């Protein structure tokens, strides 16, 4: 398929995942504060901004941190390229360019999500019922992905869309763990890591494996290494590897697969107890930078022959 179309599908997937993950993180941060026990309001929101690599741009625009201001910045600010409303708009824009490659049901779900969010007064909803809004965004993103999953043939367009989602998700999980990990020794550690699990809908899955013992090191190991949980880093890495194998008809994806193989091997052979004993920082850093590298190699390998407009934001520099 055309390189430009593949790139548009890849980014439609990334933006969609970004919107969903941002809504998840906002929701748990907000609830963490309501339920109490956590750190103070300001540091909770700052932590979230740091996880999203948005602390600097936020402070450039806002003198201080408040629940309202951060939520509006991350949800409804049309000038903030990573806000949920911007991410949905970009996902739709990318999808519109490749409309003929998408199933009508996927397109309709994405298009109506965008049109409806745009028509609403999001700031008023954030003031009144933020949880409802976050839940709705999450559900809608899942509906879009589900409509695609149930109606698109497993051919290259689908693979590039899915690849975008998986890479973004793996990266988001890494980001969140990196921000939270240094805080595990704090008194609020238990509470913090309960939130981490909740934000990726992993509390139930974790509890089934480890019981209700919310041990920070175990949570980190679970979200990094669980082979079964669909939002763990290893799970995403494996699924990405499978997609790259399918996209491969010879040499093209050799380079992203090589890098991915390294991350995959390290995570697969990682011993959870060792991770607890020696700390996860090295593993986490290597996983995250490896994922960045894979994303860049995917761009180079599959999209490089295509035209290269500067339209995407991504990566360690953000």
């Amino acid at each position, binding site marked *: 398929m055309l390189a*430009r179309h593949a790139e548009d599908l890849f980014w439609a997937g990334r933006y969609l995942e970004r919107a969903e993950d941002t809504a998840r993180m906002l929701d748990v941060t907000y609830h963490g504060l309501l339920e109490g026990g956590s750190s103070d309001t300001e540091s909770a929101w700052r932590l979230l901004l740091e996880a999203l690599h948005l602390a600097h741009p936020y402070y450039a625009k806002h003198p201080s941190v408040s629940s309202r201001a951060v939520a509006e910045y991350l949800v409804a600010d049309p000038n903030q390229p990573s806000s949920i409303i911007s991410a949905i708009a970009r996902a739709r824009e990318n999808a519109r360019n490749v409309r*003929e490659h998408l199933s009508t049901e996927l397109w309709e779900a994405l298009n109506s999500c965008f049109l409806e969010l745009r028509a609403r007064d999001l700031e008023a909803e954030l003031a009144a019922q933020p949880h409802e809004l976050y839940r709705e965004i999450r559900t809608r993103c899942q509906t879009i992905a589900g409509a695609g999953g149930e109606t698109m043939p497993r051919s290259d367009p689908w693979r590039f869309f899915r690849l975008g989602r998986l890479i973004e998700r793996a990266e988001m999980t890494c980001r969140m763990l990196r921000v939270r990990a240094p805080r595990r020794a704090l008194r609020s550690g238990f509470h913090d890591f309960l939130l981490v699990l909740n934000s990726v809908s992993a509390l139930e899955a974790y509890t089934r494996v480890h019981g209700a013992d919310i041990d920070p090191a175990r949570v980190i190991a679970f979200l990094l290494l669980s082979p079964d949980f669909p939002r763990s880093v290893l799970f995403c890495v494996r699924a990405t590897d499978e997609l790259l194998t399918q996209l491969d008809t010879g040499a093209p994806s050799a380079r992203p697969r090589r890098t991915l193989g390294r991350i995959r091997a390290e995570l697969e052979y990682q011993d959870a107890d060792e991770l607890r004993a020696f700390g996860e920082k090295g593993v986490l850093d290597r996983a995250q930078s490896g994922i960045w590298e894979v994303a860049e190699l995917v761009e180079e390998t599959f999209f490089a022959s295509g*035209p290269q407009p500067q339209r995407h934001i991504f990566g360690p520099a953000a």
Partner: protein
Amino acid sequence: MPGDRLPGYQRAAGFDEAILESLDVRSHYAAVFDELSRLGAPELASRERLRDAIFRRLGITFAVYGDASGAERTWPMDLVPRILHAGEWAEIERGLAQRTRALNLFLEDLYVGERAILRDGIVPAWLVFSSEGFVREAVGLPAPHGARCVVAGIDLVRDFDGTFRVLEDNLRTPSGISYVLQNRAALTRVLPRLSARCRIRPVHQYGSSLLTALHSLAPHASHDGPRVVVLTPGIWNSAYFEHAFLAQQMGAELCEGRDLVVEDQVVYMRTTRGLERVDVIYRRVDDAFVDPALFRQDSVLGVPGLISALRAGNVSIANSLGCGVADDKAVYPYVPAMIRFYLGEEPILPNVETYLLWEPDQREHALSRLDQLVVKPVAASGGYGIVMGPQATADQLEICRKEIEQNPRGFIAQELVQLSSHPTFIDGKLEARHIDLRPFVLTGARTEVFPGGLTRVALRRGSFVVNSSQGGGSKDTWVLEESA
């Protein structure tokens, strides 16, 4: 059945496609009106809602110019189909094939031939070389089978006595065929029994016919069949929907200029597996934007170096560059002479009576009757810049007169054609509305006239303006099979 009548229907002046002066229904429309009256007005209103829902869901909408809210309207297709019986169509088909062959021979003569038609003084050379549509860079460019105008849209109107006349030729990037297919698909779903009662020639094969024509242009035999792509200006173009639709129908990639690259005079598209060779480009980008290296430097729509690949014969393009010279409205009056010159035949479809304003006698005559004539700028299409004499104010006519006197080459004047009318659903009642017809002609290794075409309707009473941007609608257009 003959003898059926349409109570309460008011014929408009001129030819009515479906209803005789006696208000009897023409026999080839009998089954349709029988079925429509069986359904009745309330049921038809609910079918209209179903039709709108179908078009909205498919996203077949268009923006209404001048509507500040930016609201999009669904595609306005009237539920009453326009029907051409086999005999009528046979004549049109022969006439269109004849005309398109002559136009292609004219283009071939100008760009790679000896320009016999200019040498013999049939068409004035100065007129050709002063045409905005004449592209010097296209001189010498090869066109397989002499197929320069591969897709032609030739607008027909039907005058007072029912004679079909050619109103204008569209030989560059004519659009509208996707609506022909969508109209048929929608009407078949909305009123299934209507079409079941008649034997209608199908239209769904257009994508495959177009692909066959494009394949026949491939410059060289290739291992797994020639690769065809559709070249679009991009998503903001008003016909983008059609470009995407045709790409999908043909199973071709929908490319923008930036997806194609020329290396060593060969065109490639940029794919996820690297560069892949392209053999035929169906382009929906204007001549001036095709190759920024030669034409508009500011264009980001085109493909730098494309001309060199065309010149080398490594890729074919449809329609070929420079077709606009043949649909220049100042060249249009000479098409009947072209038919006689190249084919030695009498034209089957007449033109509309046209005055050449650069000829002093004809200009004087036209200027004295400006309030009765239609004046058109020669290079424009889509109805832009037209002055309708009978509707124009004295000031408008005066401006028009001055413009003609300053630039007589820039305009033609035509007799006003009283367009034929057709029963059309307006607020639940059948009323007469004026219509035209744009059939499509495909030329590859051979010429194929596509059955029917796009019928456009002026939805305002008495109006002759059929453009969808100005309140025009459309009709599914049926060509009946030969009766056994």
